[in-house]
């Protein structure tokens, strides 16, 4: 299918939904528009709200906070995941001993940690970063662990025969192999970093997109909730687009 046609079709899906939404919240076509608007807001109101946020500049502060939290969570979580993943993969005894504890820690739904983190790290950004880290860490950890374990045996033997010592094997073979797994899980881990930040904000904070949505919900401001959700969606899409750019650059060797 031609790209232009595909984009046209994709845009028309959004148009149809918005038009239906608009009709439902302003005409009697689907029932009482007041009730529908109360529960589902209306597109014009949402657009106006988003416009006000951006033109007034208030939203940038919240976006900045959420972005900072996500970025920190991603960086710290990835770093920890790489270090521990590597360490465990190279020390089978360590991995065997800690295996049940790693599984247990990973089995815990992270949301329940949010109040604890708020208690430990306060209501500022660090409790959100901590929540994001617990999510990102395990994704990266398991990927690196697997990546190092499954380094191709011929490639490894080839490195040995080319004269590499343990340190050189680490640098030229184990590390790139592990990092390629990290990069291929980039979308998931960046996504989880954002989830950690927003959920953390939602459960207790004074700034950020999650806070904005939570505030709006608190006063039954449905327009505000929907506006917040749309900004959040756009935010995640932009971040995801950036990740794709980074990925293309770093995993150039995977392209055929």
């Amino acid at each position: 299918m031609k790209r232009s046609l595909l984009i046209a079709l994709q845009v028309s899906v959004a148009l149809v939904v918005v038009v239906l939404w608009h009709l439902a919240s302003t005409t009697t076509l689907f029932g009482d528009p007041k009730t529908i608007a109360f529960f589902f807001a209306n597109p014009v109101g949402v657009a106006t709200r988003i416009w006000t946020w951006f033109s007034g500049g208030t939203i940038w502060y919240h976006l900045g906070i959420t972005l900072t939290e996500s970025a920190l969570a991603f960086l710290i979580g990835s770093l920890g995941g790489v270090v521990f993943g590597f360490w465990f993969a190279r020390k089978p005894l360590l991995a065997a001993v800690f295996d049940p504890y790693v599984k247990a820690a990973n089995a815990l739904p992270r949301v329940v940690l949010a109040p604890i983190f708020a208690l430990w790290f306060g209501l500022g950004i660090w409790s959100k970063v901590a929540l994001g880290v617990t999510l990102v860490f395990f994704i990266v950890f398991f990927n690196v662990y697997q990546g190092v374990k499954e380094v191709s045996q011929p490639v490894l033997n080839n490195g040995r025969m080319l004269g590499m010592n343990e340190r050189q094997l680490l640098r030229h073979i184990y590390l790139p192999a592990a990092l390629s797994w990290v990069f291929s899980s980039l979308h998931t881990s960046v996504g989880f970093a954002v989830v950690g930040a927003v959920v953390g904000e939602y459960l207790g904070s004074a700034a950020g997109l999650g806070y904005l949505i939570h505030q709006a919900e608190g006063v039954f401001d449905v327009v505000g909730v929907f506006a917040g959700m749309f900004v959040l969606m756009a935010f995640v899409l932009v971040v995801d687009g950036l990740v794709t750019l980074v990925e293309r650059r770093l995993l150039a060797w995977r392209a055929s």
Partner: protein
Amino acid sequence: MPATANTAVRLHGVAISFALAEGRRYDAVAPTDLLVGENEFVSIVGPTGCGKSTLLNATAGLLQPASGTVEVFGQPLSGINRQAGYLFQQDALMPWKTVIDNVAIGLEIAGTSRTQALSHAREWLERVGLGAFCDRYPQMLSGGQRKRVGLAQVLIRDPKLLLMDEPFGPLDAQTRLIMGDLLLKLWSEDRKAVMFVTHDLDEAIALSDRVVIMSAGPRSGIIGDFRVPLERPRNVAEIRHDPEFNRLHREIWDALRDQVMAAYNTTAGASAA
């Protein structure tokens, strides 16, 4: 077997066995002796699963023999064989490095400066006919091209001994012939000692000075050792029509046939792999 003064590899009573489940052992190779001369191209031919690659890995130092000794240029081998270059059957290039980085790495880790290593690598890639592919990644090349890179990667270090484990096995018939010619051309420049493992008797005769036949496993061993008095330089595709080639082929095949059938019978009924 030539008892030359200049021996590149001397296997003395090398036996190889693997641990199986429940403490049992599988004796892959019975105690084996083999000499490879300094400038000699020796092929090891045998049926599938006869342990020819295992013998090669023992010479490379990747595998510890259960008993016996491996001597390389008169020195007993311990650990990785530093004098040897190894061309693997499977893809062994680092996929995250460009072609030229893959070739240069052997020099770089040995301490050569990066610029110098890269310029050497470029020369070697020219020699294997891949000068235009320096900045590609291995995934972007065909199987034959990857083997050329592998050859450059190994030869750039100028090893005194070349170990090859069915290096052209995964390639199609035409590409094998071309790679055989390329190998002979590069080899003729300085005639390194070569141990070349293959199951293709035609390839073995066309390339080698000597063809060594191994019996079917388990407890396989060397059951035949044939000189190949064909003149060099050889053309790998043309030499198959040489009457002397055909005579040799028949003679060696007579020794090999029973082993191939034996190996076939032990694996027939099992998986077709």
